[in-house]
């Protein structure tokens, strides 16, 4: 148990600093560590947890809460959540304190604009990794692409898309069974 908690901490503490541009960018590596390195869950289980985290309200850290819960129960959830949030929370606090004093400095703008393409590459990579993890034939892939397109082109509420996605895949699979 103590070993598991330590492993969780060692996975999530460094990843805390890798969540540049939002938690999404660390997703590919969380997936790699949890599924391939530590074999804590199968790709399908990871996708289930990802879906639950996405349906639930709150910050992206709830995904790590669920992983910790899956691996080591309550203490796992606590350790994983604190590990993914703690380091960057302290950093954000420090930066909130000093950033205003140097507002608009050249190095600040270089950091902001320099991180943008890196963060974007990471978000796209995470999307690609998750898309490849989809099982269950064509239906989930079509749902993923269609909901991406709808979100880009319309102002549809994301929760509605999640519900529709669930309904579509249930109907398609139901038809295949009968």
């Amino acid at each position, binding site marked *: 148990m103590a070993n598991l908690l330590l492993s969780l901490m060692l996975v999530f503490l460094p990843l805390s600093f890798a969540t540049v541009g939002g938690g*999404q960018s660390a997703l590919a590596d969380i997936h790699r560590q949890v599924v391939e390195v530590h074999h804590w869950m199968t790709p399908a289980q990871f996708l289930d947890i990802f879906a639950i985290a996405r349906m639930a309200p709150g910050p992206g850290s709830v995904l790590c809460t669920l992983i910790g819960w899956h691996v080591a129960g309550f203490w796992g959830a606590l350790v994983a959540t604190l590990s993914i949030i703690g380091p960057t929370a302290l950093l954000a606090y420090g930066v909130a304190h000093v950033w205003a004093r140097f507002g608009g400095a050249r190095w600040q703008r270089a950091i902001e604009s320099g991180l*943008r393409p890196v963060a974007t590459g990471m978000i796209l990579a995470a999307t690609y990794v998750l898309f490849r993890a989809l099982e269950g034939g064509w239906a989930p892939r079509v749902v993923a692409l269609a909901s991406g397109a709808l979100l880009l082109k319309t102002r549809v509420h994301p929760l509605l898309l999640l519900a529709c996605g669930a309904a579509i895949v249930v109907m398609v699979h139901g038809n295949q069974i009968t």
Partner: protein
Amino acid sequence: MANALASRYLASRIEPRGCLLPGPLNRPSALQLFLAFTRITLTSFGGGLSGWLLREIVQNRKWVTEEEFLNGLSLSQALPGFNVTNLAIFLGYRLRGVWGAVAAVAGMVVPASMLVLVIAVGFASLADMPVTHSALEGAGAAAIGLSLAMGVTAAERVDRRAAPLAIMAATFVAVGILQWPLIWVLLGAGAVSVALSYARGV
């Protein structure tokens, strides 16, 4: 998490300049901050949390001005960490110092973490039914659509110049296809990219 979507949502809600009334802003207590962030977070089903924060903190409660909020948001996005928790820390600190920051981030994280466990336990009790897996897979697929839309929106904002586009593509290949450890990719590509931006003097 869906920060690009959130900022699109948010951009659609920004009042024209001049609509903001300057003047003394209300200053909440740490407890009020905790409760406000809890309420906003727990009602943010389906993402777009920064959009909800803007509406409640700026437009309804008038705790900070829109400009301060947007400065905080861009700072939160530049920093590592979940954008919305960074933003909570930034706003909490701005309003109530260190205890404000603690109250805001705790209000955002603690109740949401407990709720997600309740939801997960609920799903686990339904796990033996095939329909549960199909439903989760469908919702997960739609959530990948959120991620896709966010990636495309972010890519649209990357400068149309060779260096940033090459860095974006190289990061995608290294993380997505070669599956290199993220933190080394970030340090390597980030250092090169920031140095180039600095040299360019943007």
